[in-house]
Each structure stands twice: as structure tokens, then as C-alpha cells.
């Protein structure tokens, strides 16, 4: 009790120095939380963007598709009957928002003079509109089921072919039975998925139109959108069990399995964040170790006295580390509180970010304050304070008592 009180009183004794130390710790904690919170919001933006523009949460394929489908996509289609059955099974789950089929193939899009290879996606426009909320219409109008020949063209493709709404094009493709076919399509609008590479060679059309072109009743995949991303694992497990029970030869992929780019970016930024974290903490450490050393120096005689009247080395170390702990605790708690306020302020200010690389959309800065981020960085602030005091504390405990006592 008394020893803890002594530590606390010593912290208060030199107010100015304690204040500076507190500032340094707060600076570290605040900057780490803001940066981490910004990254977290960026990850979330990317994740939801990729889910709601392309991947959905879960994709269902014919068994073998992911291994062999790229060579012979027509061999690994889910056929019409199975499609009905799966759709029903999936829609029954309460975590599911919707499920929609897609037929994917590559084709050649030509305006008569020029031809470009395109990735075609046959879709159910009503359902896809709900799923692909992150897909932005940049010209023209949305696709509807009535637009039997209509097509939405990727933003980049739209520009590179110098298209306009209403233009008529021809789409050629190899059909499911290996012959060659072509259909006319009418440009209804241009879309952006948020990923430039996709937008440069992507188009969407009505599923039925696509199926006619491909001579098939089947689809490449079923895309499932959940009510919340956090249910992904759970629903994956549920579905895979259900399919097995029903004897359906299907395979499942989650958004996370498919979002290679997302994982690369997250890994890269996590790496950057770790380095920044180390740098910031090192700066804070250097900033406060000096004041810790001074706190020890000026109390040399007191240390000698404590040792002479029976304090062990551990006692002296404990005293200085307790003082650092108190400072670290106050600094970290204040840092976390200020960081929350700042994060909310910055998010509310709605400052626009420059367009990130590889992206075609811009968005306002948001800073998340997840509990995980708060307590971890608060803890780092506390640890740094304690670590900064270890060297001076140990040094203090090893001073010669007679010399320490003579120190005035």
C-alpha cells in the first residue's frame, strides 16, 4: 500500500516531467490507433467492395471446377435441375441474404472493325443488382430482365472501344458443345467494379441470353450473399455438410479463398503497419527513457537511504517500475480515449482519400476503433513505459549504497 503510494506520489512530485512522459506515450498510442484504425477501415472497404462487386460471400461450383474448370469450363457447369435444388437449400438458411446464378465464359466482342477478348458474365439482373451494390453504373442505365439483348460493358472497355449507350455489338464464343456461335448485344450502360483490370475486359448480360449463346441450361456458379460477412465460415460448414448429405457433387469457395489481391494488400499493409509500430514505439521509448534516467539520478540519495534502511535491490527496481507503470497506464488510457475522439472526428469530417492504386473509385477517410486495436496499442504504450524504466531502475538498484548516500 505505502509502497504503491510512494510510487504515485513520486509521479506527482515532478509534474512537468510526468506530463512530458505522458504526452510521449499518448502520442505513440494515438498515432498507432489512428493508423491501425485507418488500415482496418481500408481492409473492410476492400473486403466488402470485392464481395459486393464480384465475389459474394460464398461461391458454389460443380465438383472439380476449381481444378479443371479453367481448361474445360463447359464440362463443369451446374445443370438446371441441380441449380433449382441448391438454390432452395441455400435460401432456407437464415444467414443468407440471396443466392444468384452466374454463367461465365470468355468471348470476342466486336464492333465490326475491332475485336477485343472479354470476360462475359451472364446474370440474373434483379438479384445481381442487390448483390453487386459496389458495382457502379458510370454511363447509361441498369440492366433488366426485359433487356434480352442488353449488356453492361466494363468502364475501361467502354472507353477503349469508344462506345456509346445504344451501340450494337457482336459477341462471339465457343459453345458448350464446342461449336462457334455469335449473338448481337446492345450496350445499355457502363459499369465499374472498383478494380481497373476487371473493368478493362468485363461485360454483363442476361443469364438467359448468355445461356442461349452457349447452348446450355447450366451455370458456372451460384453466388451466395450473406447478411453479414462474419457468418461466412459458419455457412460454409453448414452448406458443405448439407450438400454431402444430399449427395450433391459440389464444391465451395469463400470470398477469402478467392480474394488473392485482398490478402496480398492486407499482408503488405500489415507488414508496413508493424514496421511503423516499431518505429513509433522506438521513438516513444527514446523520448521517455531520458526522463526516466533523470528521475532516477535526482533521487540517488533517496535510493541510498532506502537501501540502507533495508530495501533490497528488487525493492528499488520495483519502485521505479511502479512509477513507470503508473505513468504508462495513465498515458495509455488517455491516449486511447483521445484516439477514439480523434477517430470519430476524422471519420465525421468525411475527408476524401486520393484514389488508391489499382482502384477506380475514391472514398472518404474512415477510422475504425475496434476493441482489439484499442487494447493492443494501449498495452504497447504501457509496456513501452515499463520497458523504458527497466534500465534506469536496474542501474539504480546496483548503485553503491555508500556512494548513493553521499550524493546530495
Amino acid at each position, binding site marked *: 500500500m*505505502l509502497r504503491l503510494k510512494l510510487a504515485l506520489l513520486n509521479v506527482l512530485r515532478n509534474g512537468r516531467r510526468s506530463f512530458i512522459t505522458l504526452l510521449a506515450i499518448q502520442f505513440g498510442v494515438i498515432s498507432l490507433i489512428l493508423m491501425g484504425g485507418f488500415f482496418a477501415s481500408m481492409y473492410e472497404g476492400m473486403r466488402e467492395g470485392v464481395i459486393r462487386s464480384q465475389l459474394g460471400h460464398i461461391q458454389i461450383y460443380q465438383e472439380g471446377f476449381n481444378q479443371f474448370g479453367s481448361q474445360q469450363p463447359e464440362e463443369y457447369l451446374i445443370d438446371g435441375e441441380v441449380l433449382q435444388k441448391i438454390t432452395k437449400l441455400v435460401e432456407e438458411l437464415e444467414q443468407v441474404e440471396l443466392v444468384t446464378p452466374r454463367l461465365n465464359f470468355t468471348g470476342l466482342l466486336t464492333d465490326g472493325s475491332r475485336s477485343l477478348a472479354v470476360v462475359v458474365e451472364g446474370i440474373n439482373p434483379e438479384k445481381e443488382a442487390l448483390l453487386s451494390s459496389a458495382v457502379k453504373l458510370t454511363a447509361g442505365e441498369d440492366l433488366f430482365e426485359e433487356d434480352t439483348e442488353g449488356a453492361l460493358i466494363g468502364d475501361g472497355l467502354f472507353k477503349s472501344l469508344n462506345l456509346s449507350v445504344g451501340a450494337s455489338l457482336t459477341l462471339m464464343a465457343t459453345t458448350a458443345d464446342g461449336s462457334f456461335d455469335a449473338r448481337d448485344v446492345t450496350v445499355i450502360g457502363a459499369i465499374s467494379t472498383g478494380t481497373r483490370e476487371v473493368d478493362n475486359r468485363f461485360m454483363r448480360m442476361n443469364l438467359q441470353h448468355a445461356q442461349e449463346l452457349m447452348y446450355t441450361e447450366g451455370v458456372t456458379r451460384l453466388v451466395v450473399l450473406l447478411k453479414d460477412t462474419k457468418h461466412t465460415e459458419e455457412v460454409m460448414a453448414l452448406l458443405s455438410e448439407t450438400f454431402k448429405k444430399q449427395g450433391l457433387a459440389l464444391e465451395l469457395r469463400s470470398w477469402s479463398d478467392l480474394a488473392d489481391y485482398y490478402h496480398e494488400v492486407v499482408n503488405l499493409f500489415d507488414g508496413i503497419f508493424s514496421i511503423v509500430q516499431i518505429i513509433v514505439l522506438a521513438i516513444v521509448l527514446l523520448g521517455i527513457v531520458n526522463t526516466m534516467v533523470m528521475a532516477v539520478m535526482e533521487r540517488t540519495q*533517496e535510493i*541510498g*537511504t532506502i537501501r540502507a534502511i*533495508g530495501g533490497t*535491490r528488487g525493492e528499488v527496481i520495483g519502485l521505479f517500475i511502479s512509477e513507470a507503470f503508473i505513468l504508462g497506464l495513465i498515458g495509455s488510457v488517455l491516449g486511447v480515449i483521445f484516439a477514439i475522439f480523434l477517430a470519430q472526428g476524422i471519420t465525421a469530417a468525411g475527408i476524401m482519400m486520393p484514389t488508391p492504386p489499382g482502384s477506380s473509385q475514391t472514398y472518404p477517410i474512415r477510422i475504425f476503433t475496434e476493441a482489439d486495436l484499442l487494447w493492443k496499442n494501449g498495452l504497447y504504450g504501457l509496456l513501452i513505459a515499463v520497458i523504458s524504466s527497466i534500465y534506469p531502475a536496474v542501474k539504480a538498484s546496483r548503485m553503491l549504497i555508500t556512494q548513493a548516500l553521499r550524493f546530495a
Partner: protein
Amino acid sequence: MAVVKLQGVSRSFPLGNKPIIALDKLDLTLEKGEFVVLKGVSGSGKSTLLNLIGAIDDPSEGEVFIHGQRLSSLSDKQKSQLRSQYIGFIFQAFNLIPVLTALENVQYPLSLQKVANGEAKDRATEALTQVGLADFINRRPNQLSGGQMQRVAIARALVTKPDIILADEPTANLDSETSKQLMDLLGSLNRKTGVTFLFATHHDFVLSRASRILELKDGHIIKDERLKNLNLVDQIPPGEKVG
């Protein structure tokens, strides 16, 4: 059993190629209840001797025994514990902890011994009462006079009921009137509690309180005198003892 025993104790300090010999092969035994005054001019080795007996310094040669324990056989931690249990210090500069009140300063050595807070408070209050500071227990050192601070320090040394209290020129920072009152206090505490005092000074008025006078010169004991008729405390009326 002797409270303190020194056998062939020397202490030298390296200084260039010719070390300073502060103490030279001392043999000394201090008994329980003695009030020993250690005389000697400045530089004669008084502080060095007190530091060795106080287990805060190690001899270059010879052995020191406190409470029957050979100091050279103890670890740093064991020596700390020995100081905590058997030794009290009174310093020239008082050496109180500035952020703590008088009561807390006196409680502190008990908290080092892990004595429970309530008991420590009671014992510290009692010790402060013994030195006449019952009304000042909640003052900080900077709210006390020099004499009062030194009495807090005496209470701090007494509160653990040590075998011996080592006082290195405790009156050097006090005026002569205050010094005399303090000496009377120490004398009376010596008689009441039976604690051994070893008191280094170059003031002569202290000598009248002594039961034994040691004199150091150039690291040698040149005089060791036991007085029969003890100290003046007996002759002072009870009310003034605690001056």
C-alpha cells in the same frame, strides 16, 4: 552475545598506486545497550567504520559479524534483510523521503518488512510519540524544522526495534541547543529500549552521554574507554527528556 564484532577489519580505497587505508586491522566488540560515542577528527575513518558495521560497505580485509552473522557470507539480499531487521540508521542530512509524511516515513521500514498496514501505522505512531512528535505525524519533511526532521529519522530507526542504531554526525546540521536536546533524547531512548547506539561525532558535549568512548585516528582505535557513571539522562527531570 555481542551485537557487533569486528575481527582484523581493514578498509582501503584505491587511489592511484598508493591506496588510502581508511581503517587498519580493527578489532572491536559492541555489547547490547551500550551508548558508544565514536570520536575522531574529520578523515579519521568514522564514517567508514559505521558503513562497515551497517553492512552497506564491505571490508577489504577481516570479518564483520552482526547479530552473530558473518557479513561476508551473506548475499546482497540477505544483507538488506539483515539491515532491515537489526540495524537502524540516522544520517547527518536526515534523509527523509520528501513526498511522504512523518508517519509514512516511519512506517516505511515496516512496509519493507511486509508488516500489515494497520499494525505499521500503530507502531509508527508510537515511535513518533516516543520522540515527542505525536502532534506532527501528518506533516511532510518540508513542514518540519531540522530538529523535528531528525527526530522523525530517529523514530524511523527505532520503529523496527533494531539491535543497534548507527548515527553518523546526526547533529552536524543542527544548532547546538537542538543538538543537546537530541542527545538527551537518544540517551533516554538508549536507557528505555536497551538499543545499542554507535554515535560518530566530533562534538565534545556528546561525550557526557556516553557509556563508552572510542577514538579513531588514521584508521586506528587510539582510545577505548568505558564510563561507569553513564549519562546525564538520569539527572534530567522526566518531563524534559523528550525535549
